[in-house]
């Protein structure tokens, strides 16, 4: 297993949805069982090139998320590998029962993609801003719940989803994102990626907060605090081994997520620690609030999803160790 961390964290010119679609196209060329479904958001998902290349394997269902998930279940039952897309809340909230029964309970192989995680829903506002999607999806037995954070990880995780039988929920940021990985990084289901080692504290981050965690770690280094940074891109199954190693080796953990800390990464890490190795834990994330409208940078400040907040929580955690 190899993790190659990029030295330059500039925002990628290529949008993540373009990488998503390119990966779907590549997989479809290799395997005629790959099919794509959407609920009138192919434009947003950037998957229109897929429709152009494979019209017969594209099912744009109109604005009917529940039916889309059910159709995907039917396709899966006949051996196809459906990737469905809609905005995160309309997958996880509106089609929850369909994902539960027709997909997961029925042991299908459906990959549910929910876009615009948390504050990246930006100008669509609170109605479209999922701070709860991973919590809902994680509660369904056998679901794999993931959130890639950059271009390389979107490609790798999409491919991994196709190669791994079972139902997945994939949180997808559509636009450009800070570069975290270099090509050649391996992703393994249930394994966190170590982005930076450290001895005083571990920052366990997901999605939008991964790049912020790297920024925070750099700032902390200058202040003499050595922070380990893990990308917990796979929330479920959680890499408990990495969490427990972090607790034992660094003595304090700060989680960072673009999601409600309740039933999100914070809760998952807390549960693992409490049952196995109680340790100091601080959580950066949405504190049980609804989303609201605004540009993402504004919302990052509003909900304290920033490198500065991670630094503050790390200092608090390190102080608690004394």
């Amino acid at each position, binding site marked *: 297993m190899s993790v190659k961390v990029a030295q330059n964290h500039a925002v990628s010119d290529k949008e993540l949805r373009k990488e998503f679609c390119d990966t779907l196209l590549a997989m479809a060329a290799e395997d005629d069982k790959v099919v794509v479904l959407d609920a009138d958001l192919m434009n947003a998902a950037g998957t229109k090139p897929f429709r152009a290349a494979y019209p017969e394997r594209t099912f744009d269902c109109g604005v009917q998320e529940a039916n889309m998930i059910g*159709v995907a*279940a*039917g396709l899966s039952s006949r051996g196809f590998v459906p990737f469905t897309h809609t905005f995160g809340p309309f997958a996880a909230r509106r089609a929850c029962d*369909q994902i539960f*029964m027709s997909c997961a*309970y*029925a042991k299908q192989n459906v990959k549910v993609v929910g876009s615009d995680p948390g504050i990246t829903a930006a100008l669509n506002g609170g109605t479209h801003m999922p701070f709860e999607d991973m919590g809902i999806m994680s509660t369904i037995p056998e679901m794999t719940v993931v959130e890639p954070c950059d271009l390389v990880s979107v490609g790798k995780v999409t491919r991994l989803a196709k190669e791994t039988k079972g139902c997945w929920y994939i949180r997808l940021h559509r636009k450009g994102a800070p570069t975290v990985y270099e090509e050649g990084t391996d992703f393994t289901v249930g394994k966190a990626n170590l982005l930076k080692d450290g001895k005083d504290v571990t920052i366990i981050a997901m999605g939008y907060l991964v790049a912020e965690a790297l920024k925070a770690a750099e700032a902390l280094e200058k202040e003499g605090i050595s922070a380990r940074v893990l990308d917990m891109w796979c929330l479920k199954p959680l890499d408990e081994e990495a969490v427990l190693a972090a607790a034992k080796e660094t003595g304090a953990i700060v989680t960072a997520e673009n999601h409600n800390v309740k039933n999100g990464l914070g809760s998952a890490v807390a549960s693992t620690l409490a049952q196995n190795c109680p340790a100091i834990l601080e959580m950066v994330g949405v504190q049980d609030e609804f989303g609201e409208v605004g540009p993402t940078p504004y919302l990052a400040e509003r909900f304290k999803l920033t490198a500065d907040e991670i630094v503050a929580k790390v200092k608090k955690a390190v102080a608690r160790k004394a």
Partner: protein
Amino acid sequence: MNEVKKFAVDIRKETIKCIGNLGVGHIGGALSIVDVLAVLYGGEMNIDPKNPQKDDRDMLVCSKGHAGPAVYATLALKGYFPMEMLDTLNKPGTRLPSHCDMNRTPGIDMTTGSLGQGASSAMGIACANRLKGYNNYTYLILGDGEIEEGQVWEAAMFAAAKKLSHMIAFVDYNKAQIDDTPENLCALGDVAKKFESFGWFAQNVADGNDVEQISAAIAKAKAEAGERPSVIVLNTVKGKGYSKIEGSLGSHNMPVTAEMVEEAVAELDKAAAALA
């Protein structure tokens, strides 16, 4: 058709016996769909009980998953699994759960139970079969109460748009739900007309417990639907075949005693004798 009628009697007997063996179950809505099951599995469907996964088989989604016992009785009689297995219905560790489960029961093509969902998965199956280049049919059984679910109408619009010509849906219009009649609860109106306005080839079958009428409607659907999906509204009687509970609201899920089984089987034996 006499054979199919006899098959229907046998399905009814086994359905009542397996529910009675447990003592309680969804008997009313199971008995109302027996005749369509007899037509489908008694010759209409291209299936192979020795090879339940035959890839180009005709398929059935019983979206009113609570009618599972009738489907199980049908499958057992067709030889998908031993008849004795029917005695395990809903017992710990059974392969025959209350609601249909494709991962547990040989011959069940889709897991159902949360109403409305089988409509969509059936459309997905029809899409998949077309992608595979098959001309097989996907059959779907919906309850009348079930079509109060919005998802059914999402699936209906989808099926028409995608021209799912090899989809034949049945509505088991037995006019009795758990709490009340569909008319009092949700005003279903003219179900066939509703589907027709959604772009389906729609037919009403006056007696949905008459295998000849059902069979004729399927033939007509296959001949005349063209690019449209088909729906056949079966005017059925809840609890059909066991006169004591026929048409009763209370038969949705009710206790079934050994005495009731005896009484029902005697009644059905009489019906079978009349066919001979």
